[in-house]
């Protein structure tokens, strides 16, 4: 009798779980279900163009998800982001770079070989454009918060327009206090927008912020002063940043690792 009651309870709970999962899928919230995660499909990935990193990411950035590149300044975040954008344009995909503080310099990036007509560059306000860079304290915080607000709105516009293969939002130059002022629901909305699309959305920042349920976080670290070569004080030459990347994902990766530490040749001598 008791065994029969347990079986009934299990069936009811299984039914309730199925109903709950169906409701989540209907509202496109099934990304939180760990049971529904298929193994990553390489065609559903946007390669970064960095072979070693792609191998660890399982093919690249997952499409339809918000992923992140995080790490302190000078640790190769910019290089990984621009390499991803370049690789996407070379595949014939449209890409968008939401440049929050207008720090992108196309000249050096041209050496990566991007197809510029497929590259939408959305330029925010440059640092120093208002007040000549002499704003301080609260005023600067306000200016940066406005720039962040416009950048997030621009990203939302690009994602809602559709047709892009990769959208990169650069928040790396913003202070942590400004970025943390954005409500978390904003990032959830970005994830809802990109869900189901072919686009992969990548946010570049200092800290983990808004990774989607099936997204990836590439956490970078590097030698503090970069890699130099040459003997003698007058023969030194900057040859790279010596970046290492740690991939963080919500569930087990294809090889079974949870976190992987790899070397990424972010900057090599030309």
């Amino acid at each position, binding site marked *: 009798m008791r065994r029969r009651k347990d079986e009934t309870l299990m069936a009811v709970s299984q039914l309730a779980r199925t109903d709950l999962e169906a409701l989540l899928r209907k509202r496109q919230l099934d990304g939180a279900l760990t049971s529904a995660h298929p193994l990553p499909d390489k065609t559903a990935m946007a390669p970064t*163009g960095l072979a070693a990193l792609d191998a660890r990411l399982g093919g690249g950035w997952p499409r339809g998800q918000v992923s992140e590149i995080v790490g302190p300044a000078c640790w190769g975040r910019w290089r990984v982001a621009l390499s991803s954008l370049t690789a996407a344009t070379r595949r014939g995909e449209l890409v968008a770079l939401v440049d929050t503080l207008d720090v992108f310099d196309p000249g050096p990036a041209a050496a990566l*070989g991007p197809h510029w007509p497929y590259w939408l560059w959305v330029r925010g306000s440059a640092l120093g454009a208002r007040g000549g860079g002499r704003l301080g304290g609260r005023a600067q915080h306000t200016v940066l918060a406005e720039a962040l607000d416009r950048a997030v709105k621009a990203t939302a516009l690009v994602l809602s327009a559709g047709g892009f293969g990769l959208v990169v939002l650069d928040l*790396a130059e913003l202070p942590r206090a400004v970025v943390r002022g954005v409500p978390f629901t904003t990032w959830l909305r970005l994830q809802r927008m990109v869900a189901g699309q072919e686009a992969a959305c990548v946010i570049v920042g200092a800290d983990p912020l808004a990774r989607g349920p099936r997204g990836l976080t590439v956490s970078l670290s590097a030698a*503090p002063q970069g890699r130099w070569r040459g003997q003698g004080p007058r023969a030194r030459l900057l040859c790279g940043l010596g970046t290492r990347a740690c991939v963080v994902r919500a569930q087990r990766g294809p090889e079974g690792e949870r976190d992987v530490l790899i070397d990424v040749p972010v900057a090599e001598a030309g």
Partner: protein
Amino acid sequence: MNTTLPAPWFACLFLREVPAPVSAPGAVAQPGGPEAVAQPFRGGRQELSPGLFDAPGCGTPLDRVLAIARDCSPRVEVAGSRAVLADAAGLTRLFGGPPALGQHLAEVAAARGTPVRVALAATRTTALLSAAARPGVTVVPRGQEAAALAPLPITTLLALEEPVSQPASGSRPRRAQGGGRHYRMAPGPALAGSGAGQALDPVLDTLARWGVHTLGDLAVLPPADLFERLGQTGLRWRQRARGEDDRPLVRHEDEEIFEQHFDLDWPVEGLEPLSFVLARLLDPLCAQLARRDRGAVVLHVWLALVNKTVHHRRLELPVPMRDPKVLRTLVLLDLESHPPAAGIDRVQLVAAPAPGRIVQHSLLRRPLPAPDRVSTLVARLGALLGAGRCGAPRLVDSHRPGIFDMAPFAPEASDPPPPESHGPDEVAHEGARMPAEPAALLRRRRFPVPIQVTVQDGRPVRVAGRQAGVDGTAVLEASGPWRTSGEWWRTANPDPARPRRTSRPWDRDEWDVAVAGGVYRVFRDRITNGWFLAGTWD
């Protein structure tokens, strides 16, 4: 019941003088693409005048002749750059016969300052050739077409081969019928005998060598022999020399003017109420475009304001569009960026039409978003961030650090990237196919930040700058100096077309320095002798 059609009569008005290309007064000449002739408000209440060129003294001479012909007959045809043909059948009751009609046309043309030769005949070919060759008013009796044309020089036939010119009122260009060639303007028959017209056409040269100098000589040649030697072209020329038509009159139709306007009872202050007005105007405008299988490539928005000024916006569209929702969004976004200075009294929209777009998508190329979606996105981004803040990067042929340019983002109009296999097995090797890569990528400060640098033995040893985020930090590694300079020749005459920041000369020594917080590029401006932070390696 028997219905008797009036006997065919054609009137030809032939300009005496070769018209010089004259642009219509008041026409808005805009570079880039097809363009409608749009007139702004005059005094805030006038509207675009579709009959602008009907007025005497306005438009090109051909337009004036076209207007005269239309006053007499609804069926007119532009034949070449100097002639207009009108169907004169059934006009007897109005004008009292062909001679009277011819006289009336000549008088009206003279009164409007456009002297013309007039000829009336039962065939359009005879009327055209007679008007081209004979001054004054000529009436060729029915049945005597060949006899009337016989004495005319053979070069008169070139009047039939002139390319059709496009009246300034916006008609579509139409290829000359008969013969696939287009000839340069032939000298008028008044110049016949002066030597002009020789060697203009190989057929004419051949005929001249045969001793055929008049239309009568050509008309009596045996058609079979002529066909053997000159083919269908020879037969067609002989048919014309006899005054016979090889095609009927083709009615000339003006291109429509795609315009809508609305007078408001009360001024509109905001964009939200204006959107309803725009929807009311754009729906019929786009329906009109759809009926003609046209799309708008340029949309003019004229807003008459309550302060008696006119706010004009010109939207250049990347492809012909006729979706009212997309156009309304684009207009509203543009007005959001460039709002009118006062309340709006009147709204007028004028679309410059272009033929509808037929797109054949590739099975092998990755599909791109529709151009209207891209242009809407760019317009929304422009409204959010300001004009010129989004686009595709474009390199500039300069050594100036940080210089760049932006091109309009129009991926549909560009060539696709070279084909590249990206199968799953090749993903891992994609990085290996990348070209030579730079040492690192710089996050460049668009406005270099002033810093204080302590220099020992010509090398920076300490960097300080609160704005740059480095405070008295010792330099761990340094590489440089890398001297770069340029545009010193612009000192005396800076380029007024370029912003001052990009037209000034530069002369700097650049250093890559590693401090505890990261690796930076700094430089010493050799003009001001100040140190600046150029960017961060990342």
